[in-house]
């Protein structure tokens, strides 16, 4: 089901993730903005995101806060972000306060019961704002990862 994107989008330092879900767009969007739902999937494998520590104020300037707790050792990863754009049920954009990382989530209806979620995660800090970084090579972090992988694997 997963369609793993590697498409360069022209934004420097960008990672692209995409997944198609068998669900209506409104429902998928609701899951990404309702703390009850977020608590059930926001933490990756082995990590919880307790409901009572999720804050969603889904409007431009509103906060999006989560704390991910490692199930194994209890270590915590708090993340605070501020929404830049909110357009239900098609678009969410937020910027993480500590890292400056920008996350754009697009919800594309492929059918009444089928939705593609496209995540564009841009690593904003200095490195990717340099003109030479924007010149092409680093336009996709996926390509960059392949390049580094080739070097590291030696």
């Amino acid at each position, binding site marked *: *089901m*997963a369609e*793993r994107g590697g498409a360069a989008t022209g934004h420097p*330092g960008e*990672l692209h*993730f995409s*997944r198609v*879900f*068998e*669900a209506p767009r409104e*429902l*998928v969007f609701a*899951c990404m903005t309702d703390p009850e*739902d977020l608590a*059930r*999937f*926001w*933490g*990756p*494998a082995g*990590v919880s995101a307790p409901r009572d520590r999720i804050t969603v104020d889904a409007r431009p300037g509103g906060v999006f806060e989560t704390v*991910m707790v*490692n199930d194994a050792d209890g270590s915590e*990863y708090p993340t605070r972000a501020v929404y830049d754009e909110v357009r239900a049920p098609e678009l969410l954009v937020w910027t993480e306060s*500590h*890292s400056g990382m920008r996350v754009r989530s697009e919800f594309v209806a492929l059918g009444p*019961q089928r939705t593609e*979620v496209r*995540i564009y*995660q841009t*690593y904003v*800090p*200095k*490195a*990717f704002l*340099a003109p*030479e*970084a924007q*010149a092409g*090579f*680093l336009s996709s*972090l*996926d390509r*960059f*990862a392949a*390049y*580094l*992988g080739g*070097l*590291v694997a*030696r």
Partner: protein
Amino acid sequence: MTTQTADPLDAAFAALADPTRRAIVSRLARGDATVTELAAPFAMSLPGISKHLKVLERSGLISRRRDAQFRPCHLEATALDGALDWITTNRRVWDERFDKLDVLLADLQPARKRPRRAGG
């Protein structure tokens, strides 16, 4: 989880954002080299190359021995690992989130589970 702080990561990404420095890193992936050897493929002065090497050194991507006469440059592969880890960790986090979201969406739409199981 992303445990690495942003600073060394910024330094590594910034250093690698330049095509000359990437070429130097690629060369060093094949083995240590002196400044003169590194400069050879480029139409660039030794001071010009030295400037790039200083950036790479500050970022932790390469090291230079203080004692040896020709001070060969050495690629610190673990610093590259850091940049690579950051990218792959982010990818994995979203993959695993979406796996869970898939399950949640199936839970939220009980009426839709049956026809799919029946092959509909």
